[in-house]
């Protein structure tokens, strides 16, 4: 009513209703989310219209689909109403692509590790599906929205190294030199960064950065690290190796929090590493977590991994409804609520033009003990729920609860409550086909240089391979460096690399001493 009133009085004003945007309890998060939606609404509208116009002029006749933070896509006419849900969709695309790749590799469980210039981002694919979150924090603002759970720390190639005067110890970040002035070796700034450390250690080739399009100045890296070395009473190589070790242990810590703290065993996962610096550091944090295999998506799809991820996405609408139900549960009410949410999804997907046989629904309940705040998401079978199924759902809840919090932590005497209904309405889309890798030909082994593989270790004369010259089936024993135009893979002495038939680079740590 209010919305139509505003639209009548001021037809050009962007109006967003929290009840339509996020039908969840919690007025603070709703208001913030709705305000952010209004803030970016007009910009998004203009942007999408521009793309549509251009696409049409190029002869594109299908509806334009836009990626959401859920990892799914929706038609552009919806996005201009709910631009909020695109926040964080970039990393979500990487997750969607990785979920597709994991499936292609026959792996149910994967950890994504995306390291760029300013941050390290990670997410979890468990039993084939990316794990989700329901809250987003931008600066100090928290709002509710369904999204894939991608978490990040400020550890990237540009993270600045410094010495804490009081403790006399080396610190890395969270300040970043970014791309401008960038690492000292870029020739502008003088602050030492992780990229400088990687140059000094020999991981990165100063003459082959971005495929040789940019020359890095190793001398400047050394110069930037020298004052730290003096303060710490160490040599430059040790400072560089130490900084890298600190960053890698922080990454391992974040992944630990994402897995072990949720009752997941990282040893049952593969790492999918990408981003400019991800493949350079993956070996060490994989080893720290006991993970046996790293996959680096490569070949023709690597350079645009997120774009590729977008192609893997299905149409996805998420419907949520807050409700507080106590035991004994009113089954009729539960069934009706799910049916209503699914009917909304059905109508929406039909409007999107999805064929009936491509429509799938996933149901969830968020459940908690009485008087608790935190709810756990429990999958719910489709169709009309009977008493016995409700009992199974509660048993499932307690299983999940105990896997999160430990055996014996569940306590049904406290009473169980349902707090939220959630339905994913999915329109299955055609998936891309992974093309055969094309070898660039030429000799893979193209040089040697000294690489320092560990803190306090002597540099080792290490073979350098040119990635695009590799062909499927090639095996490279560590220590070795494989250089690609966009990234550099560091294969530590305890690891072994190979290229699979799809053009992915695989690093195995299995059987190596820990």
């Amino acid at each position: 009513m209010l919305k139509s009133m505003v639209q009548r009085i001021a037809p050009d004003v962007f109006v967003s209703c929290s009840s339509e945007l996020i039908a969840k309890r919690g007025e603070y998060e709703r208001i913030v989310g709705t305000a952010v939606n209004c803030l970016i609404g007009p910009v998004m509208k203009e942007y999408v219209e521009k793309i549509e116009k251009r696409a049409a002029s190029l002869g594109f006749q299908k509806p334009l689909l836009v990626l959401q933070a859920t990892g799914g896509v929706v038609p552009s006419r919806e996005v201009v109403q709910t631009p909020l849900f695109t926040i964080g969709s970039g990393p979500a695309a990487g997750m969607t692509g990785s979920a597709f790749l994991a499936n292609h590799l026959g792996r149910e469980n994967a950890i994504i590790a995306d390291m760029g210039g300013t941050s390290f981002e990670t997410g979890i694919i468990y039993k084939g599906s990316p794990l989700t979150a329901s809250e987003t924090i931008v600066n100090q603002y928290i709002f509710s929205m369904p999204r894939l759970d991608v978490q990040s720390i400020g550890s990237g190639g540009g993270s600045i190294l410094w010495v804490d005067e009081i403790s006399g110890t080396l610190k890395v970040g969270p300040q970043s030199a970014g791309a401008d002035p960038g690492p000292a070796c870029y020739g502008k700034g003088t602050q030492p960064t992780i990229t400088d450390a990687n140059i000094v250690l020999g991981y990165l080739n100063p003459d082959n950065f971005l495929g040789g399009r940019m020359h890095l100045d190793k001398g400047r890296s050394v110069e930037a690290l020298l004052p730290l070395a003096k303060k710490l009473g160490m040599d430059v190589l040790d400072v560089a190796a130490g900084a890298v070790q600190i960053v890698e242990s922080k990454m391992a810590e974040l992944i630990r929090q994402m897995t072990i703290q949720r009752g997941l065993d990282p040893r049952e996962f593969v790492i999918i590493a990408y981003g400019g610096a991800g493949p350079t550091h993956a070996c060490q944090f994989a080893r720290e977590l006991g993970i046996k295999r790293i996959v680096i998506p490569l070949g023709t799809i690597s350079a645009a991994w997120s774009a590729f991820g977008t192609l893997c996405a299905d149409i996805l609408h998420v419907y949520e409804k807050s409700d507080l139900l106590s035991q004994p549960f009113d089954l009729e009410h539960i069934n009706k609520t799910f049916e209503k949410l699914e009917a909304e999804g059905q109508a929406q997907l039909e409007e999107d033009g999805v064929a009936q046989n491509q429509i799938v629904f996933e149901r969830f309940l968020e459940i908690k003990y009485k008087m608790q705040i935190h709810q756990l998401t429990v999958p719910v079978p489709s169709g009309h729920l009977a008493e016995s199924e409700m009992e199974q759902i509660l048993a499932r809840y307690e299983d999940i609860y105990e896997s999160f919090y430990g055996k014996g932590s569940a306590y049904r005497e406290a009473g169980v409550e349902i707090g939220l209904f959630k339905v994913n309405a999915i329109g299955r889309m055609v998936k891309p086909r992974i093309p055969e890798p094309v070898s660039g030909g030429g000799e893979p082994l193209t040089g040697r240089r000294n690489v320092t593989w560990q803190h306090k270790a002597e540099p080792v004369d290490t073979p350098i391979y040119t990635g695009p010259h590799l062909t499927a089936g090639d095996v490279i024993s560590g220590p070795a460096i494989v250089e690609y135009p966009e990234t550099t893979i560091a294969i530590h002495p305890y690891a072994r690399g190979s290229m699979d038939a799809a053009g992915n680079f695989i690093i195995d740590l299995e059987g190596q001493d820990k």
Partner: protein
Amino acid sequence: MISEDGINWDGKTYSYIPSDPLVIDPSLKLHDQTEDDLDPISFEVIRYAMWNINVEQGNTLLRVSGSPIAAYGHDFNPCLLDERGNFVFFGPFLQYLSSASGSAVKWTLENRAANPGIEDGDIFLTNDPWIGAIHQADVCLFAPLFWEGKLFCWFANTLHQWDLGGTTPGAFNPISENVFWEAGCIPPIKIVEQGTLRKDLEEEYIRRSRMPDLVALDLRAQITACNVARERMQQLIDKYGASVIKGVMRKLQDNSETAFLKRLETIPDGVWSEESWIEMAREGDRGVYRNVVRLTKKGDKLIFDNDGTDPQTGGINCTAIAWKGAIAAMISAQMLFDQMFVIEGAYRHMEFRQAPGTLTCATYPAGVISAPPTVLLQTIGLAGLVISRMLYCSSDESLRSEVQSCMGALNFPVDAIAGIDQRGNQYVSFLLDPVGGALGALSWKDGVNTGGWPWDLQSTMPNVEDNEIFYPLVYLWRREIPNSGGAGKYRGGNSAELAYVLNDTEALTHHTTSGHTIIPGPGLFGGDPTSRTRFILVKDAKAREAAGRDGRMPTSMDELGGEHRHISPKTGGVVQQAGDVFLLAWTGAGGYGDPLDRDPQCVAEDIRDGHVTADWAEDRYGVCLNDQGGADAKKTGALRKRIRNNRLSAAEGQMRDLETLPEGPEEIPVSEGLVISTSANGAFYVCRKCRTVIQDAGENYKKGCAKRVTNVEEVGLSPVKPDLFIDDKIVFKEYFCPGCATIFQGDFSKEEDDDIWDIRLFLA
């Protein structure tokens, strides 16, 4: 420990103070091997991992408990302690709980090592405020970790419980006369024995509660948190070796000590003092009670005492352990902000000399359960102020930027509610909305409105919608209170208020516990005092009828009919019925510096943004607006001049010939308005604005000021007639520069009391 005056501080009558060194049964072996030659890389990696272990302990507690008290009140804190119970980390949650966990562990080492023994897999529980708790509702669980048969370190976590029995429901008791009226004290018991939860002790523990199932759930949360942390630490030791880990623990403590000492070096020796008042020790009482925090800095020592604090009474007292925690919370926030709160380094240079039998050093069996929302929070506020006064004298600019006025949360207005909820279940709880506390002004910027708690970095206010689901309430409003932040050169943060009616229930019972309903908290350096806490019950408000009549919810007290009753800050059982409205308002923060020194444009912006009203701006800031809503320079100048004249004409004190002293080379700024200037004739307090000599530096500067005395009910926002709740006559004393009328300080005290001596430097 037995002190020089023969008092046995053993945790029975007097709070426990550990022996130095600890006296531990020799059958218990401690691991104290340290690797001293740590490389700076391993140190950083292990430090980061250890911090995360402790955070993980806290997050586990938060998630498993999931109670609103944990989620919004953040009334919990995990910590990691070394083998002797010294702090390594205590988590980024409720900081004042720290002193208690260390004390609990040390007491247990001294008293439980032989019988029943301390072994691997054990977890102990205590809620005894004389041993290891802030008050009985804060239950501390703590677990040793053993390495090769030796006690390596401890994990401890404290969590506030809904109800552990006593004569009133909930975690506070406004009718308490002594500890026997309250939830019982449990000295450390071994609730988990070598990995097994003892059923008998669990039942004994939860039996006392009105909400045993929730207490049982929280107990599991606390045990799980201990176990998670213990397991992680075990892995860390496996990886790096026990002596390396222990070396990192020691170095963390040493680093924080180094940082702390470096800061102390920038501060001249001296004494700083601050005091405030609590009304009513229990329901029916009509007294007011003085709480004093005094800080002496001598070389590398900070000595805190409570000299002048009133004797213990009712249920509002805190034990020496709680008092220490209150002070440590502010030391941590203001002086160790970059040391990840490793308080141990500071503890090595802090002494606590409190007089027993007082409000802030209660001896058994004084009532202590209501300390946190009253005397304890007030002590945190006062500690922040004495530390601020001291830091102002530092030569280190970064420390001076930590100087802050009094936070609004120098009391927590407990509105404990009990009854039958909309689902027909019994419940007991208290509203956590005042977690949105008003933050104090800094020496360079305004306080944040409803910004949270300064001693808890992650505090959040509950959503109204969540409260309406949890409890049988419907809010009429919850909003910021304009003018509630004390006026000053920098304005204190504004606080908020809420009003609600019942939903789907016949009645609910309120128990209130709070302070500052009559006497506001102090301002700093002449800033206005804090605002007041208010509980008002509107009988037969006819809110629903009003809403039905014109389709609009009432949005102010003026729109409500019925009888408006001020509810006292210690009430045991006021009943709200279906037609009644209950209002709860919490205190805004104190102001910083003379309000007449505030940039008029900032006042105009405050008016535009609704933080200050135009009439209040004229009255407190002397600022008039022009037609465009900006500050009118001419009118403002004239009004401010008039206010200054009024200050001096209304002031008492000798009208003497004023002398001035030109700016000298050796001056120590000691407050926003005063410097100590040294000349050939000696050292003097001098007004920084007009250079008027105020007083000899060895004397109380207030003796040389023009002084105005006003009755408490004529000061500040929303005053209440004092005789509603108290009998004493309290006045507000303002001290002005006799030359330029700048206000240096305003104090509340009994009429007959001498001027508070708030600063004295030991000049060489």
